[in-house]
């Protein structure tokens, strides 16, 4: 994926999480290319973005389970 594609994703309003993530990749890559980060710092930051996906998945799982528990509880109150 080119930086141009990332700029396009960063500018989109329909998927704010993707825009935020793309903006981060751009910021990290630009700093690396400009000498603001060394290679090990750059690789570590990229690893952090991968970790963010893992965190997103866990958060979505908790939110889904909470929704189910809430829904079942609400139905139980009505029935």
């Amino acid at each position: 994926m080119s930086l141009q594609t990332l700029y396009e994703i960063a500018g989109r309003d329909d998927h704010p999480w993707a825009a935020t993530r793309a903006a981060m990749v751009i910021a990290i890559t630009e700093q690396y290319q400009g000498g603001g980060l060394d290679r090990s710092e750059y690789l570590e930051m990229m690893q952090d973005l991968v970790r963010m996906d893992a965190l997103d998945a866990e958060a979505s799982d908790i939110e889904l389970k909470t929704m189910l528990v809430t829904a079942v509880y609400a139905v139980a109150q009505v029935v």
Partner: protein
Amino acid sequence: MKKLLAILSFALLSGCAGITGLIPSFWDDNQSHRIINVRLDIERVDCKAQQLPQVVKIRDDLAWFKLYSESKGGRQADVILLTKPMTETVEDWHKRVSTEGHKDNSIYCDLKKRVLQEQSARAAKAILGRF
């Protein structure tokens, strides 16, 4: 009917995860308080100041959260897993700034702060949104 609903919820939840992750963790005042402390620690990071003591603060609050959740026992696996990526991000930062002869890089700090702001906001939303 309530028995039927209990069976239904069991069946639905078992579809979300393995048998060990069957029942989600529920609201906890201490976990909620601590995850906001973590967010506050991150918000207050000043990248022009020495990084090590600031990273230690975030690391300690995350360690508190993990130890408390482990001590609380069963059904806390989901929140421990949730905070694991953040802990790894902070551990890498801590390892780097505690290395002898390390010189703080404010650009690295700014980017690390942004990543952690995003991670902690997402984690806090899930933790505070529980039933």
